[in-house]
């Protein structure tokens, strides 16, 4: 049987490690965020932190509250299912405080992003070669964006 004095140093080593482990466990208790593990292996508070960020797009239902007259026109036109902010940009700030004016739109840039002819677009989607179609004129020269179809042209085709 090995006398204790010959293994004492090994016990010292072991107790040094044990002390380290205990310190770590104590530290862990105070350092791990309280909501960790609430729903899974993550901080439960993260869910509310993410969901409480401010919004930039108000959503078309918010627009329709004040601008119902525009809605009346739009909902019978070809842009019925195009949300207001799709063209007008994020307007949550404007919806909260109508005195904040929305940005001015430039139809020369705006409309072609969707309607410039491109072989990859679906065949049934209305698209034109803008240089030939409008010869440099802004689109709202002839088209009203909220109801873009020109009835005169439709009648002509018929």
């Amino acid at each position, binding site marked *: 049987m090995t006398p204790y004095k010959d293994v004492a*140093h090994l016990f010292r080593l072991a107790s040094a490690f044990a002390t380290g482990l205990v310190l770590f466990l104590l530290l*862990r208790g105070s350092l791990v965020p309280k909501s960790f593990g609430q729903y899974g292996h993550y901080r439960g508070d993260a869910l509310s932190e993410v969901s409480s960020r401010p919004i930039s797009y108000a959503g078309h239902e918010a627009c329709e509250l004040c601008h119902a007259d525009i809605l009346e026109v739009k909902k019978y036109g070809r842009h019925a299912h195009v949300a207001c902010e799709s063209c007008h940009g994020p307007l949550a700030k404007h919806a909260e405080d109508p005195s904040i004016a929305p940005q001015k739109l430039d139809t020369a840039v705006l409309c072609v992003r969707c309607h410039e002819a491109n072989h990859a677009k679906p065949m049934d989607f209305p698209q034109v070669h803008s240089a030939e179609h409008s010869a440099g004129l802004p689109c709202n020269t002839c088209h009203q964006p909220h109801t873009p179809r020109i009835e005169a042209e439709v009648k002509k085709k018929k």
Partner: protein
Amino acid sequence: MPVEGFMYPNEVELQWSVLIVLYPFLTGLVAGAFILASLERVFNVEAVKPTYRLALLTALAFLLVAPLPLQLHLGHPERSPEMYLTPHRSSAMAMFGFVYLWYLMGVLVVEIWLDYRKDIVTTMQSSAGLRKLVYKVLTLGSTNVSEGALKMDARVSWIITVIGIPSAFLLHGYVGFIFGSVKANPWWSTPLMPVVFIFSAMVSGIAAVMLLYMFLTKYRRRNINMRCVDTIARYLFYTFLIDFSLEMLDLIHRIYEADESFRSLDFMVHTRLFLSQVVIQIALGTVVPLVLLAYVQILPPRPIARKRIYGLAGSLTMMGIFAMRWNVVIGGQLFSKSFLGYTTYKMSLVAREGLLSAIFLTLLPLGILWVLLKLLPPWPEQATPARMVD
């Protein structure tokens, strides 16, 4: 043009830099050096005894530096304790944190302490002042170096080494698994990855200790123990053969199965990765050292020629294994996961994750090793350091 073909927009910039190449290289050296040490302790290969302590100290020096490239790479290094506080058990990276800690404290530090205990006590007793204090701390307060105590030490040390061998495999195998388990990346995703990493680690570690031993012995103006280096070189050769076979197996398997990713990866190897993979890793870093080492085995030349060959083969090996890490980490990010394009790695020079940082972190372990060699000399120094045979 940095991008050729199509890459998903978020893929163009590489995520893991040269520092992440360095990290498996450093941990690989640790595992390899330890395996060499275990050859003597567990497998009784007495010939390599002169390198036993050096191998352990080398492993320690590299293991201490290994987390540094990771820290430098993190977006929030101050949050890294989270890996120990809330480790995600399904993440190989998280579990590696504990493997690292176990290996450092439970294996390497204990083994070094047990082997050096007698010398630490002796040095303490013959020192004064600050030096005495440093060594006193290292003794953990015990000065018992009786035969009984030392026998106990030897027994425990043997057990630790036996546990240490699978621990070393786990250490570097885990690093391989960190890459090998990523199903999103076909260059990485293979069950062979941990195995290839382990064997290339052993190759690099053995070569590193061999080179360090030769260099330090020359520096101390001693004669190199040829029986020792010949044995190390032989083990290097065998390990390298296995490593090379495994890597060739991976390659042949890929070429044969030619799955969806193959055309893209094949193109990448022939173009962007040609220099680092075909020239540096395979030709100069594997085939040439293998031929040199094979030559020594078949037609052994005179000692002076053998030393030169070992020096050359060892250096090329180190370069080749670094290139292997480069090809895995960087190569895995050069091609698009759409298999339709390629990007380029723009390694900066002076940035946080730049070349200079990588060079510094490669040299730092050598600096630490120098300190360790002073603190815990591996070889008994004689009074007159004239030319002596070990």
